[in-house]
C-alpha cells in the first residue's frame, strides 16, 4: 500500500483514537497529579426530623472562590501515587525494615489495597491466560475433527460462554454455587461436607473466579485457533503421516508450530483482558476475598465519595501494568516481523 493511500485509510481510526483515547488519557494523567483544594469547613446550625444541633459542613461560597481561581485543583505531583492507598512507598519501606522473613513481608503487603489487588490480579492473569490457550486449543482440535454436519452446531455451542454478558454470567453462577444452590449443594454432597461454601473462603473464591474466567474466555481462544486450523497445509500433514507420525506427533510437530503466531496474539489479548478483571468480582460479590485494580477504580468513583484523583492514579498504574505485561510479547512479535538482515 502506498504511504498516501495508507494515510487516508488510517486517518479516521487515528482521529477517533486521538479524540477518545489520547485526549482522555492526558486528562487522566493530569487528574492524577492534582487533588481537590483544602476544604473550607464551617460549623452551622443544622435541623432535621430528629432535632437541631451544630454540624460541620462545607462553606460553598469560600470553596467556590478558590475553585474559580484554580479550577484544576491543588498540584500534588506524585503524592497520590506514593500514598498508602496506592504504591505506599512509606508503608512498604516500614514492612521491609521490620520483616522477620520474606514470607512475612509478602503477607504484610496484603494489608495495602494496591498490593492486595495486584496479588489477585497477577495470579488470575497468569493462571487464566495459559489455561484459556490450552483449553481453546483442545476444543478447537476436538471440534475440527468432528463430522462436518456437527461442526456448525458445536462451534455455536462452544461460543455460548463468551456470548453471555460477563456480569450476567457471573451472577447466574453466583446463585448456582450458593450453599443452597444447585452446584453448591451438589459439591457439599460430593465432598460429604455440609459446611462447604465456595463463597466463604478466600482460596475457594479465587478458584471459582479463575474457573469462571477460563469458562468465559476459552471460546475466544477456541475460535481463533479453529480459524487457524483451517489453514494448516494438508501436504505437510500427509508428509508427516507418510513418515509414520502418530496423530499426537502431527499435532505437536506440525499444527502447534503452524499456530504459534496465533498463540502470541491470543496471549496478548488475554493478558490485557485478564489484567483488567472486574465483572466477576462484582458479580460474585467477591470483594472480601479478591480485588483488582479495575475494582479499586470502580470502588473509588462508583460511590458517593468520588475519589477522582485516586481513581485516575489507579488508572495510570493499570496502563503501566498492561504495558509491562505486554512488553515480552510485543518485543517477540516485533522481532518476528523485522528479521535481522
Amino acid at each position, binding site marked *: 500500500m502506498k504511504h498516501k493511500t495508507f494515510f487516508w485509510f488510517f486517518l479516521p481510526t487515528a482521529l477517533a483514537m486521538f479524540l477518545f483515547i489520547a485526549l482522555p488519557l492526558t486528562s487522566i494523567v493530569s487528574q492524577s497529579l492534582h487533588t481537590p483544594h483544602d476544604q473550607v469547613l464551617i460549623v452551622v446550625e443544622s435541623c432535621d426530623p430528629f432535632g437541631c444541633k451544630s*454540624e460541620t459542613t462545607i462553606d460553598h461560597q469560600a470553596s467556590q472562590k478558590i475553585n474559580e481561581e484554580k479550577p484544576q485543583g491543588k498540584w500534588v505531583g506524585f503524592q497520590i501515587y506514593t500514598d498508602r492507598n496506592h504504591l505506599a512507598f512509606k508503608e512498604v519501606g516500614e514492612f521491609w525494615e521490620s520483616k522477620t522473613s520474606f514470607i512475612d513481608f509478602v503477607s504484610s503487603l496484603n494489608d495495602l489495597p494496591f498490593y492486595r489487588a495486584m496479588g489477585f490480579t497477577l495470579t488470575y492473569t497468569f493462571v487464566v491466560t495459559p489455561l484459556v490457550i490450552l483449553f481453546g486449543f483442545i476444543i478447537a482440535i476436538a471440534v475440527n475433527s468432528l463430522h462436518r454436519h456437527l461442526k456448525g452446531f458445536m462451534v455455536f455451542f462452544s461460543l455460548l460462554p463468551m456470548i453471555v454478558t460477563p456480569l450476567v454470567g457471573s451472577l447466574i453462577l453466583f446463585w448456582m454455587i450458593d450453599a443452597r444452590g444447585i452446584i453448591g449443594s451438589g459439591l457439599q454432597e460430593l465432598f460429604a461436607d455440609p459446611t462447604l461454601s465456595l463463597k466463604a473462603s478466600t482460596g475457594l473464591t479465587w478458584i471459582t473466579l479463575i474457573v469462571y474466567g477460563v469458562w468465559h474466555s476459552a471460546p475466544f481462544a477456541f475460535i481463533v485457533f479453529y480459524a487457524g486450523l483451517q489453514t494448516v497445509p494438508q501436504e505437510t500433514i500427509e508428509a508427516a503421516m507418510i513418515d509414520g507420525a502418530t496423530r499426537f506427533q502431527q499435532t505437536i510437530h506440525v499444527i502447534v508450530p503452524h499456530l504459534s503466531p496465533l498463540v502470541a496474539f491470543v496471549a496478548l489479548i488475554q493478558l490485557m483482558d485478564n489484567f483488567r478483571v472486574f465483572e466477576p468480582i462484582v458479580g460474585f460479590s467477591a470483594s472480601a476475598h479478591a480485588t483488582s485494580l479495575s475494582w479499586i477504580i470502580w470502588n473509588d468513583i462508583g460511590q458517593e465519595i468520588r475519589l477522582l484523583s485516586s481513581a485516575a492514579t489507579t488508572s495510570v498504574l493499570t496502563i503501566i501494568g498492561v504495558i509491562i505485561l505486554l512488553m515480552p510479547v510485543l518485543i517477540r512479535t516485533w522481532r518476528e516481523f523485522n528479521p535481522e538482515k
Partner: protein
Amino acid sequence: MFLRKIATVVALTTLASSAWAGCGISEGRVSIVGNEFPAIQTIGAGAMECAGGGVTVETNLTADHQKINLPGMTGNPAEFTSAIVANSSIVALMNNDVIRPLNDLVAKHGQGLQKSQLVTIDGNIMGIAFMANAQHLTYRSDVLKDLGIPVPSTYEEMLAAAKKIANYNLMQYPIGGAYAAGWNLAEEFVNMYMGYGGEFFKPGTAEIAVNNQHGVDSLNMMKALSEYMNPDFLTHDSNATSAEWKAGNVALMNMWGSRIGALKGDEVDAAVVAATATAGPMTVGGGTTAASTLWWDGFTVAKNISDTDAEATFMAMMHAIRPAMLNETTSPQAVWLIDGYEPTPAAAGVFAAAAMGTKPYPMLPYAGLMHSAAGAELVDFMQGKETAEQALAGLEAAYTTAATEKGYL
C-alpha cells in the same frame, strides 16, 4: 445484588390526564432518582400522577441510586431534577453543591409540611424529609416461644438466644445479618460502635479516632455474631438477608424498618409471616445508647435546572407526599413523617428506636469516606486473618489517605 430490579418508568406527555390538574403544575420537567424499596416506589408513583399537559415526569428508582445521583445532577442542566436521599447521601450532594435551597418554594407551596420535615442547614432548607427509618431487631416469635427465650434487648442476649437455638438444632445459622463487604458491613460497624458509645472523629476535626477499646469491642461482637450466621455472610446484603428470613432459615436479625413489610409478602410461608415480629434496636456492652442509627429519607431539588422545572419538581413531590396518599397499602410501608400518619404494627421497631434516643447517622462531610474505608478494611478481621487492632489501624490509615486527598486533613 448489583443488578437488582431497576424500575425505570417514563411517562410521556399525554394531554388532559385527569390527575395532573390536581397537582396544579402547568409546565416543567420532573426527573426523580432514588432508592427502590416499596415506600420510595410509592413516592415515585405519586409524582408520576402529575404527568400530563406541559409536564413530563420520569422516575429512575434503583438500588444504585447513590452511584448515579451526583453525576446526574452535576451537569447544567441537570439530568435529575430531584434526588430522593437519606441523611448520609444528602451530604454528598451538599458537598458538591448540586442541590438548591428550598426556602422560597416551601413558602409558596409547602403549607402542608410540618416543621420537623424541613432539613435545614444554616437557615437554608436543603431537603424535605417524608419518612424515618432505622435498623432494629426482627425475631421469630414462634422459635423464641418454643424455647422459652425472652425477646433480646441486648446483643449479648441475642448471642445467648442464638446459641440456644443452634444447640437445639432448630436452625443451623439462627442469626441473619446484612454483613456484605462494603457499605453494609461498614453500616453494621457504625451501629455497633455507636452502641458502645464511641465517637468516630476527634471533636471538631476530621481526624478519625476508631482504633480504641470501643472499636475493638465492636469488632469482637460482630465476629461473635457472625459465628451464628450463614458462612457466606460477607456476600449478604439486605436483600439476601431478607431472602434468608423469608425462607425460614434465620430467627433473629437486625433489619431496616422499611423492609419489614416486604418480609410478609404473599410468596412467604404463612407460618413465617405469622411469627415475624419486631422490637426496638438492641444495646450492647451494658450501654444505654442503641446500637443502631436513625435515618430520614427525603427529597431534594437540583440546583442546575430552570426555576420552572424546580417549581414543577417541588410541586410534584409535594403531591406525592400529600396526606391523602396514606391508605391501607402505603401506611405499613414506612414510618411516614406526613401529617395524619397513624403508626402500623410494622412501624413498632422504628418508633422504639426513636423513643430510645437512638442517634441519627452523622451528617458530616467526611463520614462517607470513613464508611467506605471501613467497608473495605474490616473484611480481613471478619475472616479471622487480622486482629481487631490491625483492622482498625488499616481503617484509620485508609481513611486518612482518602481524607487528605479530598482536602479534609
